[in-house]
């Protein structure tokens, strides 16, 4: 029982960042119909930005976080404008392969610049964990949970309460009609990609200090993000949040009760199971899928 409680607490911390990753990808996948293989590299990029600002520039941990998010936003905008904008109207396989090319090039770039040795990021929190009854959680992880929750709420408000969010939702439902109504669809695509990328960078910046930072860290993160998107249904933000927590729960329980070697297999198994038995995702809005 105590062990289960501990797993549930870990699930909350992990689930928050997974939800961020999932929201970013589901926006891009849902609105732009692009299978974004650079999502993982944005996650890596966010973590390295954190490392650079804290260790190489010597600035405060709490300054580094917004810097990483803004840097992710900028990189996302650059990728969209240079690679995806010229390919508007191309089929999904072509954009997917271009994204794979960009991913290979950027990951090798990260390896070239920062080397393959894993780096850790210092944090200002006390080492001793917070202990409540049978459960212990480090202060850093607690901060990660709250920061992720804040970012999820921000993303939610952006999409549901602002004019930009309304235009994004309109583009998702029908890009032609949205364009007729005066929505600058091209700008919406760029904003969507940039926002999705900044969320991935945020997830990397938050989990980077918890684990270690290395160039390939984003590969698994990208696959997990795909699992979350499939679980939640394409373009479904609430689904992505719930999917993030479900994946985190499956991983925690899988690692705790089956074998820690199969922790990362959970995401893949979820993808396969969901697509076989319920291809529209668990929380699908029945229309507009596929």
């Amino acid at each position, binding site marked *: 029982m105590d062990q289960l409680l501990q797993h549930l607490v870990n699930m909350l911390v992990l689930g928050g960042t997974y939800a961020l990753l999932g929201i970013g990808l589901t926006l891009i996948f849902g609105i732009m119909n692009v299978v974004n293989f650079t999502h993982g590299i944005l996650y890596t990029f966010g973590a390295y930005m954190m490392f650079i600002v804290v260790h190489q520039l010597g600035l405060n941990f709490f300054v580094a976080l917004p810097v990483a998010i803004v840097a992710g936003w900028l990189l996302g905008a650059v990728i969209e404008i240079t690679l995806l904008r010229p390919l508007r109207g191309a089929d999904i396989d072509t954009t*997917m392969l271009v994204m794979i090319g960009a991913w290979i090039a950027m990951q090798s770039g990260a390896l070239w610049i920062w080397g393959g040795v894993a780096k850790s990021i210092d944090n200002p929190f006390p080492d001793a964990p917070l202990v409540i009854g049978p459960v212990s959680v480090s202060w850093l992880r607690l901060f990660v949970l709250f920061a992720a929750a804040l970012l999820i709420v921000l993303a939610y408000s952006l999409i549901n309460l602002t004019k930009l969010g309304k235009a994004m939702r309109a583009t998702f439902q029908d890009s032609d009609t949205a364009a007729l109504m005066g929505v600058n669809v091209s700008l919406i695509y760029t904003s969507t990609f940039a926002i999705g990328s900044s969320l991935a960078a945020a997830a990397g910046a938050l989990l980077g200090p918890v684990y270690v930072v290395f160039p390939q860290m984003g590969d698994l993160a990208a696959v997990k993000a795909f699992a979350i998107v499939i679980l939640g249904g394409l373009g479904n933000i609430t689904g992505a949040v719930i999917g993030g927590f479900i994946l985190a729960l499956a991983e925690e329980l899988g690692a705790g009760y089956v074998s820690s070697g199969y922790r990362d*297999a959970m995401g*893949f198994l979820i993808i396969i199971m969901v*697509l076989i038995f319920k291809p529209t995702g668990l929380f699908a809005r029945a229309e507009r899928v596929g």
Partner: protein
Amino acid sequence: MKQIVTLLCLAFFASVPIWLTDPYLLNALITTGIFIIGAMSLNLLLGFTGQLSLGHIAFFGIGAYVSALTSLGFDVPIYGDFHIVHVPWPPIAGFFLAIVISGFCGYLVGRLSFSVRGAYFVIVTISFAEVVRLVALNWVELTQGPLALTNIPSITIGLPGLGYLVLKTKFHNYYLVLAVAAISYFLISRLVHSHYGRAMRGLMENETLAVAVGIDVTKTLTLAAVISAGIAGAAGSLYAHYIRIIDPDVFAFISTVTMVIMVVSGGKGSLAGPVVGGVIFGLLPVFLRPIMPPEAQWITYGVVLIVILFVMPRGIVPSLAAKLGLARAGGTRRASVAVSERTAEEHA
């Protein structure tokens, strides 16, 4: 005309080890050849049925492990005192078993994943390959996990009246790979020009229409998946017996990407495409290695992929064929004939 070109190419490839003695280059050619076989099998799915499988390396890896384990033997505890023990068989048996088991895995994956299309199909296939990799990494009793299977024997062929020939040298392996590649090429060529091949192309171009005229979609796609996986398994087996050591890295996603690059750059849906793309991208590292560090090589790889997709989205072979077809259409033939021939050439 077409057959003559194919035979000339085959004769040229067969002559290579006679005048090329540099072992480093010959090694690069053998591994490239193995990957070209993989790329040809991927092209059967990607180019002729339109399904982008990004888990193709799973069948390659399964073939490699099946073949290696068949020829090495194993003793795996299943439950309590119950063990499954296998005594080593000759490597050539492993080669054929690799084809059968990979083909069977192709059948299973095909049955399960052809219910979804497009991006979802891609993601299911990636997931399948990753699950297989994690099993290979974690089932240490069977696969040795990250410690790798070592000392895999070379393939031995029994020649009637002449004893046994152990295919251990690069010279022998080159011809072995070339023979398997030629057989695979012939098989795929026969398949895509058959009734089934037309059904495949029909449902790639318009699935609803194909169903309406009575094409059994699942059966056709599964057939393509089985043959494709079987050929990939054969390539994996060749890899295992040539390199003679395999670890779970054989399932690396980047290897699938390499095959996809070979197919897409050469021209998907063209029989010669994967060979042309494969020779270019297989030998690119050989030329890049002296002038740049490995990371820069991979950056070049990624950039070249993007540039090809921007400049020649249909690939090298179909683009050239279209040019030649246009030149010919200017001659005495009627335009409609030239057009239908051009579409034929794209698929040839």
